[in-house]
């Protein structure tokens, strides 16, 4: 169990700067998620923490020990790869015991540990099989068991769920979290899927173009985004951004609702010209325009099924956003303005 500190990491691949002055620190037993679009440097950061890449500048320390120049095996970290990277020529048992064999543990202790780890992930009946004889979900469990078996200081996961189908992914998410809570090993998890990030993380590190945009709890990242990148990357559909009085006004689609019945509340009103209504069953997405210039061309409203107001394309309605749901951003830099919401003195 150890805390990881990453200090001012910069990494070049040739001329390309993939990480730009990245700093972050985990807390004890934390589940930290690195979230960002592909190419944002999150996997490179994870590989640097694992010791598979060397940073061009900056330091990594694990449990207070500077490990920057040390090879992976001197760090006692475990990693689960997107492809699972099981050893194809070894049985499941041999795969799981591999990290123990590298530590020259005796046979009885190895057998015991393998039994424990495979029991933990419910794969004890698969021990004699080869990886090619396993399903995707089973392979993923073997990869997790192999990573866990030696109780590492740190658990690194690189998009471990992205090769599973959607149904399995939800249950794997749940298992992963329960499991991490029980074992309590500090975990860093890389994903580009914001749903995974919101569901799994104690805190989320949002990255873009090699830089950290925001570090915060899922709720902070969702409701108090540090800039327009975070605001539009997290959330589906993303936060609406309209230009008003020289600043960008942001509000979540689920805050942008018909005025009907909310006339008394402290709201900001918009005339909303509906262009398209998409009924997804669990929610209605209403696309349209307001009187203001919008960042991505349109404004979206997300209506829960209990809001039964009839809405038609081509008509204009009065919509409203609670003042607390309004976030202001600098029009040019995109950073959050910690000012007072509009309309309040």
């Amino acid at each position, binding site marked *: 169990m150890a805390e990881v500190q990453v200090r001012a990491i910069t990494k070049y691949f040739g001329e390309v700067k993939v990480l730009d002055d990245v700093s972050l620190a985990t807390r004890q037993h934390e589940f930290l998620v690195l979230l960002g679009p592909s190419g944002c440097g999150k996997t490179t950061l994870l590989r640097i923490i694992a010791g598979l890449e060397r940073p061009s500048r900056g330091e990594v320390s694990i449990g207070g020990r500077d490990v920057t120049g040390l090879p992976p*095996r001197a760090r006692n970290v475990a990693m689960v790869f997107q492809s699972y*990277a099981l*050893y*194809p020529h070894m049985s499941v048992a041999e795969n799981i015991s*591999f990290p123990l064999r*590298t530590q020259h543990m005796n046979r009885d202790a190895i057998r015991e540990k393998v039994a424990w780890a495979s029991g933990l992930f419910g794969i004890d009946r698969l021990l004699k099989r080869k990886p090619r004889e396993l399903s995707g979900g089973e392979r993923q469990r073997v990869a997790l068991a192999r990573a866990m078996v030696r109780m590492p200081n740190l658990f690194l996961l690189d998009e471990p769920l992205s090769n599973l189908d959607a149904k399995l992914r939800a249950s794997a998410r749940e298992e992963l979290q329960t499991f991490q809570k029980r074992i309590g090993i500090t975990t860093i998890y890389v994903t580009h899927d914001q749903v995974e990030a919101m569901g799994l993380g104690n805190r989320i590190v949002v990255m873009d173009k090699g830089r950290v945009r925001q570090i915060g709890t899922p709720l902070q990242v969702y409701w108090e985004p540090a800039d327009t990148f975070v605001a539009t990357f997290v959330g589906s559909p993303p936060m609406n951004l309209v230009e008003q009085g020289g600043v960008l006004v942001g509000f979540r689609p689920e805050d942008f609702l018909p005025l009907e019945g909310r006339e008394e509340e402290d709201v900001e009103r918009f005339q909303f010209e509906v262009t398209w209504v998409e009924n997804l069953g669990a929610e209605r997405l209403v696309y349209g325009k307001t009187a203001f210039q919008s960042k991505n061309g349109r404004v979206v409203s997300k209506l829960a099924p209990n809001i039964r107001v009839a809405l038609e394309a081509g008509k204009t309605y009065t919509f409203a956003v609670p003042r607390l749901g309004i976030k202001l951003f600098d029009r040019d830099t995109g950073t959050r303005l910690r000012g007072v919401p509009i309309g309040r003195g």
Partner: protein
Amino acid sequence: MERVERTPAFSLGYVWERERFLAAVMIAPAALYTIALVGFPFVLAILYSLSDATTGDPTVRFVGLRTYGFLLQDPVFLKALQNTFVFTFASQILVLVLAKILALVLMEDFPGRRLVRFLILLPWTAPISLSVIGWLWIFDSVFSPLDWLARSLGLLGRPEALLGPEQNLYWLGRPFLAMASVVLVQTWRILPLATVILLAGLTAIPRDILDAAQVDGAGFWRRLFQVIMPLLLPVMSIAFLFGFVFTFTDMTVVYVLTRGGPINSTQVLASWAFFKGIEAGDLAQGAAIAFFLFPALAGLSALVLLLARRAEVS
């Protein structure tokens, strides 16, 4: 052209759409080639080996297994049989070890890697008889640059020198050194091919697996022997098979360097078959000697292909 279009039932175009016909046509050249250049000589060799044919009188008159019986009592033949195995296995084991090291080095990123890869492939592209003549000069009994190097390093030519007091080692004139020379040249010759094959195999191992082994705490040797080698086994066995076949049946190196000498100490089946069958004109004996290559080649090929297949599946 137009008439064909009007009477589609007789069109040639439809014939080509029958898969069985098309398949037969496409396989035919390869089959004919194999029959003419492998099958026919093979059958002919068996017939000759059971006859008393000579180059002066190539009529096939059967004499049964007489030639084989004679061969098995011929000390030169037995020596050649043994030499063939020594020559093949010694050179191929060297090739595999060196090719493995070379391939691992060439996987690393270093300036000039492309140039080095190109240079390593060069021996493979040179005509073998010419390059072996080059080696003949290197092993020259008087002017050998190897001897010259050893002399100038003080390893040769002085009473207390490590390699002896003579001025020259006479590489091709002493049985052991002659065999070593032949093995060395054959190794040099096959090495590029094996390196390229292994390099391809190494490139095919997913990077994630090697990374995982590192994170799992495996050092260089453990990664090499427990992860890389097992994954490379099918490719290594293919490289070995090629090298084995090329070496087992080869006579160029022996023919140019030593002509089997001194006193048949580097004589191999292929060269002995050539000397007996062609130069001495005893077709029956030449064919019978060459026929001894067959079981080893067939057996090993079957074994290696089986291994490669099993490794592929698992």
